[in-house]
């Protein structure tokens, strides 16, 4: 395969980048829920909260911080207050009691009453302005009757989601339960901050079609090798993209030819490459046949496993590069040392594209001698680059056993780019710096990187994206899969005309094509880590209705 020709001939997809909405945006949780309201002694308020929180754990996926926990009688919503007072006249003056909200998940009524009993309102002390309809006595210092604490539970509805505006907050406060409006809260609990999303979208948009076309090339390569299904992944460093763009502005020329420089690693699916129990792999069984016949159906027994999916392999390539680098420069040797009891993920030999992108800037250790570190700064030199004094460039390969384990000899570097003009004597085959940050340079997992995929990743790989700390994940709408983990709704979108949008949900419900789950896993408020998710809608995709017709498998 002529890798450089493949790259030169890339034909960027044409279309637009659309943020994948979060599941909370597409399917707001059921708006209202039942709750209890109980009148308690105002002096016990903090104890009441402690007791409630200790006894009834909150549902972390259901933050209810927009609801006041207490309300004085006079700020109860009039309907609720009327309902309460119709059941029992006020026992005490307003200053003596307060109403506490018990929100879902609702505890058992008897348990709740027992828990709150110690905090029941004092029997009538000085009810100055209440008409004495009961046996109250206006005795300030002693009580005529022994305390008989009772807790009455009243029902109300509460809004589960924070209000989106002040008007909504006021309406709820007047009809359901006092609500706090925090302008920042509504979106931040259900979706990424708009500024963050916008910035990422703007940075992705110009080159997304290019990187996705590369992902498809990687996918083709995987399919044609017989080693896997036609799925590809491309990991890109937006910081390098930015430098390319900056160079473009400064020099005033088109840098399209440089875009591949921001690619740190590519990987294709390799699910048929693994030999299990010593038996031949699917790829070996069907050697020379492409696509692999196993890809015609979904038979779990011959699907390899998710660690052989494109995303997982790409993540592992970055990790492997760092492990190799750490061994070479001796940094963190103790943690990077291979432990024979923990075998590395068995990977097939790297494909031409995989090897090219992973190792293209790896200094050619067979020729390194004197000055590679002084080679001209590539225009892509990283802002955050922190030259490593123990660079692998100084290491003698003959003494390093790990060199023998390199799956591929380092490939020659690509031809000098048009912008490396500086010093003609400089060895153009030794670029200034590897583009993957080593651990000693602060490189950590896939933090701050973007990943472009030819297909919607499966749930396992979608979570792999989060665990690897990617900034964003992008796939083409045409690559949606029923088993995917990122989509949050059936296909509707800015490219569909209004008629389509209106018809879509009904149509899909009728023909039953949309029974897949929509997990929107890229950004779930319940999870500790989140990424920005984007779909690439190619021009003409308005007609792509759903995942119907896509093959069924995990990408």
């Amino acid at each position: 395969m002529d890798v450089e020709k493949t790259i030169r001939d890339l034909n960027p997809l044409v279309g637009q980048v659309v943020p994948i909405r979060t599941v909370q945006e597409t399917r707001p949780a059921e708006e209202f829920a039942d709750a209890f309201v109980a009148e308690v002694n105002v002096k016990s308020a903090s104890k009441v909260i402690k007791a409630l929180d200790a006894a009834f754990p909150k549902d972390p996926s259901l933050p209810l911080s927009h609801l006041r926990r207490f309300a004085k009688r006079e700020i109860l919503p009039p309907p609720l207050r009327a309902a309460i007072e119709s059941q029992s006249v006020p026992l005490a003056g307003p200053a003596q009691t307060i109403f506490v909200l018990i929100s879902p998940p609702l505890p058992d009524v008897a348990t709740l009453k027992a828990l709150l009993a110690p905090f029941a309102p004092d029997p009538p002390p000085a009810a100055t302005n209440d008409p004495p309809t009961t046996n109250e006595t206006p005795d300030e210092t002693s009580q005529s009757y022994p305390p008989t604490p009772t807790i009455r539970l009243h029902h109300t509805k509460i809004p589960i989601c924070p209000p989106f505006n002040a008007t909504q907050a006021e309406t709820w406060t007047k009809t359901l339960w006092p609500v706090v409006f925090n302008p920042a809260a509504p979106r931040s609990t259900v979706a990424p901050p708009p500024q963050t999303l916008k910035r990422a979208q703007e940075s992705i948009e110009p080159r997304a079609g290019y990187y996705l076309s590369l992902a498809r090339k990687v996918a083709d390569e995987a399919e044609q090798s017989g080693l896997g299904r036609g799925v590809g992944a491309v990991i890109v460093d937006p910081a390098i993209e930015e430098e390319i763009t900056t160079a473009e502005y400064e020099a005033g020329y088109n840098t399209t030819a440089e875009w591949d420089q921001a690619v740190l690693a590519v990987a294709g699916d390799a699910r048929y490459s693994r030999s299990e129990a010593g038996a031949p792999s699917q790829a070996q069984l069907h050697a020379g046949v492409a696509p692999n016949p196993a890809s015609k159906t979904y038979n779990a027994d011959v699907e390899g496993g998710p660690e052989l999916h494109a995303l997982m392999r790409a993540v592992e390539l970055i990790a492997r590069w760092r492990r190799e680098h750490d061994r070479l420069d001796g940094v963190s040797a103790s943690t990077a040392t291979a432990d024979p009891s923990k075998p590395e993920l068995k990977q097939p030999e790297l494909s031409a594209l995989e090897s090219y992108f992973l190792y293209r800037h790896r200094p050619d250790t067979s020729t390194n001698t004197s000055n590679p570190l002084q080679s001209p700064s590539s225009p892509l030199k990283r802002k955050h680059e922190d030259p490593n004094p123990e660079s692998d460039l100084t290491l003698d390969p003959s003494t390093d056993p790990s060199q023998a384990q390199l799956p591929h000899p380092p490939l020659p570097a690509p031809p000098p780019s048009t912008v490396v003009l500086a010093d003609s004597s400089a060895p153009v085959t030794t670029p200034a710096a590897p583009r993957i940050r080593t651990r000693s340079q602060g490189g950590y997992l896939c933090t701050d990187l973007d990943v472009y995929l030819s297909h919607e990743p499966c749930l396992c790989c979608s979570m792999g994206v989060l665990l690897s700390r990617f900034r964003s994940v992008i796939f083409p709408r045409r690559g949606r899969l029923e088993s995917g983990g990122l989509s949050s709704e059936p296909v509707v979108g800015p490219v569909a005309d209004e008629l389509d949008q209106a018809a879509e949900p009904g149509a899909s419900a009728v023909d039953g094509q949309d029974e897949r789950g929509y997990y929107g896993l890229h950004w779930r408020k319940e999870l500790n880590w989140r990424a920005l998710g984007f779909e690439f809608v190619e021009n003409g995709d308005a007609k792509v209705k759903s995942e119907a017709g896509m093959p069924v498998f995990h990408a």
Partner: protein
Amino acid sequence: MEFKGNSVEDSRHGYFMKQALLMGEKAIQSGETPVGCVLVHNDQIVGFGMNDTNRSMNGTRHAEFIAIAEMLQTYPRSALQSTDLYVTVEPCVMCASALKQYRIRSVYFGCANDRFGGTGGVLSLHSDSSIDPSYPVYGGLFEKEAIMLLRRFYIQENEKAPNPRPKKNRELNTTFDNDNEEAPQTWARLNLPLILANH
């Protein structure tokens, strides 16, 4: 499911979970988040796993994947359909999906995982409908032991945290020393390589 430890079946589960805990113990000794697991096929342990994210520098190398890789050296993938997993912490969303794709027979776990759990903690992928069959999950077996492992790890982690990272961060540290908002962030960054929270 209640594990009372008073029947042959319970002591069998207990035995395998103890083996998983031993793997968690091994993890903590190698500076990994202490999650361990074993795969059991025909009453035999056919795969051992512990978290391997720090050493491998790959945040997806969870115990389950390590154990499966070991098992597949001697068994075909189809054997997972008659294999049970014993894992000290509820499988995360990633592993819960992987186990489903691999068609595990059933999963026994120690403590729940309400941050990443994929079998009830956050999502319930084991029982959601999908192109693969559901699998049953039983939690709470040696729960306290599993939690203690995690606690020991996080305490120990504080002690040996901030050495390997260089000057950059030290500067950051002094710069934001008195800034309450920044301080925890700096701390977290310093600790990153060790807190690859897992599972």
